[in-house]
């Protein structure tokens, strides 16, 4: 428990640092959201309209420290304000409408990549020199070497456009009413396939190699030899003895990745026109939409911290040794 309290303390500090960073960054940028908006659209606004807009958006001209104090206050109370680039929609609503898709896409691909990757890693380590061990790693490394967006665009082009096997945009068929109907769920699944597949393809190699290497290290541990000597079944040795231990580093990276899922898959969202917070953040940054940017950053940071904290808790369950240290 002490261990966890300590971690918690660390996370609080980390949280503070990130939100402060998040506060500082946009404020050092030249320009303001309104001229930003102007630069991007051909709609001409007259000068007084611009001033009016600035007033409307509630752009702050108080001293920085006062802004900082009220920023922290808002942050603690979960008040995220109103988005500027989507004025007058509240930030919570903007994020709320996207985050589900982000979690779906990121979560699915992470879980699949981690699961399959780790399983492959286990198999490769167990059957050293087998075809999975000698053939897959270089292939996966090679696939993973391509720039992600490049692969994604290629996949979209080939499977979406040329072959027409998969939808080429969005999270479900346009016009469907979200709900639990099989039609909607099926549509969600088919739309998810290609984006998730590309993410899985580029990330699976890392999981596999990581697991393989720790498994190989674990396999030479004495307790594996002992388990072998005990005459245990291979499956039991692999999973109960070797994988249980080799899993520990993977759990940590899984936790990290899980947190980062909330950050969205910006490139995927862009290429597949998939909804999600990644694009939202980019748009917020480009539109100088501080409230939205800060809201997103807050959510992402919190998610990362919470995910890490969860991993700490899981870790304590999985590895009895950290309970004392």
């Amino acid at each position: 428990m002490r261990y966890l309290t300590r971690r918690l303390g660390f996370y609080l500090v980390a949280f503070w640092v990130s939100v402060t960073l998040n506060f500082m960054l946009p404020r050092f940028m030249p320009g303001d959201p309104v001229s930003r908006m102007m630069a991007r659209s051909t709609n001409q606004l007259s000068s007084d309209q611009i001033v009016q807009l600035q007033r409307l958006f509630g752009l702050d001209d108080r001293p920085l420290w006062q802004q900082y104090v009220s920023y922290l206050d808002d942050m603690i109370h979960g008040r995220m304000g109103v988005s500027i680039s989507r004025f007058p929609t509240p930030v919570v609503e903007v994020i709320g409408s996207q985050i589900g898709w982000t979690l779906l896409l990121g979560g699915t691909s992470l879980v699949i990549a981690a699961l399959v990757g780790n399983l492959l890693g286990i198999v490769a380590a167990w059957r050293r020199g087998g075809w999975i061990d000698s053939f897959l790693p270089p292939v996966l490394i090679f696939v993973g070497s391509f720039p992600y967006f490049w692969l994604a665009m290629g996949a979209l082009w080939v499977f979406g456009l040329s072959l027409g096997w998969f939808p080429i945009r969005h999270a479900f068929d346009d016009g469907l009413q979200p709900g639990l109907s099989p039609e909607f769920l099926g549509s969600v699944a088919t739309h998810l396939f290609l984006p998730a597949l590309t993410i899985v393809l580029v990330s699976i190699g890392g999981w596999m190699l990581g697991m393989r290497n720790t498994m190989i290290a674990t396999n030479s541990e004495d307790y594996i030899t002992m388990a072998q000597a005990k005459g245990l079944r291979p499956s039991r040795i692999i999973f109960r003895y070797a994988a249980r231990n080799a899993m520990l580093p993977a759990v940590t990276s899984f936790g990290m990745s899980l947190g980062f899922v909330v950050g969205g898959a910006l490139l995927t969202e862009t290429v597949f026109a998939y909804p999600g917070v990644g694009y939202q953040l980019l748009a917020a940054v480009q539109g100088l939409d501080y409230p939205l940017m800060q809201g997103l950053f807050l959510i992402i940071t919190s998610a990362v911290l919470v995910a890490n904290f969860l991993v700490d808790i899981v870790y304590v369950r999985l590895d009895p040794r950290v309970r004392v240290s």
Partner: protein
Amino acid sequence: MSGSVLEVRDLVVTYTGDVRTTTAVDHVSFSIGEREIFGLAGESGCGKSTIANAVMRLLTYPARIDAGSISFGGQDVLGLSAAELRRFRWSQVAMVFQSAMNSLNPVLTIGEQMGDIFTEHTGCTRRSARAQAGELLDLVQIDRSRLRSYPHQLSGGMRQRVVIAMAVALRPRLLILDEPTTALDVVVQQEIMAQIAQLQAELGFSVLFITHDMSLMVELSDQMAVMYAGRFVEQGPSAALMHHPVHPYTRALMNAFPPLTGPRVPLAGLAEGVRFRDIGDLAEVAPGRWAAPLSDADRVRFEKEMSA
């Protein structure tokens, strides 16, 4: 000695490396009788653990058994199929590893690890496996509540006792002890050895006891062999070896342990960098006493040394 439990004949084990291939065990033969404690001594890396692993058939790449036979109670160990091997292990031969500290899985409780043996070999329920594991702990005088402990919560001595308890779980006919106490304190070491002696008296298994501590070995074992660079250099009853070592290496070993009583006498041990080469096959020098003849070059050197 009534009939032998383990018969090892002309065993050759090699390790294939990147640049060279090491013969870790080179034409080694020995047998262990019922209820016998057979000691195996020798310097680090001479191949002791390799023999033990060969008997358990635990050798993996890059190790290869190149020649020889191992028969256990008349059964050809090297010919066992995977399934037979699983049944053979632990129920016939069990082993306490060199680093018992590390031979327990850190993320499973002692109870789970002990229980695994029963569920695997006797197919009993987890519940009864747990009960049997409890009995085993009684045997080595550890509180049953420790079944729920993880290895790191136990001291080195306790872990070692747990491993010993596990080793005798299925009442094997042969117990291999690979330096079971080197990592432990003298005091604990003594207790562990006492424990083993006691269990052997109760359960009547044979022991292959590996160590490089000659004092300990002579104190415990009936027969012993001294190994050097993959070869046996001397073999015979422990006391005889102790008092009348034949091979210079045995002599050096025996000479390496200062006594706790009597006057301080200078000891020599084995000089740094001294190597024996071309060790011949064992020859019977007296009834039940075997020793490897020195090669001519070695003899010349050592005799000169001794006379100097």
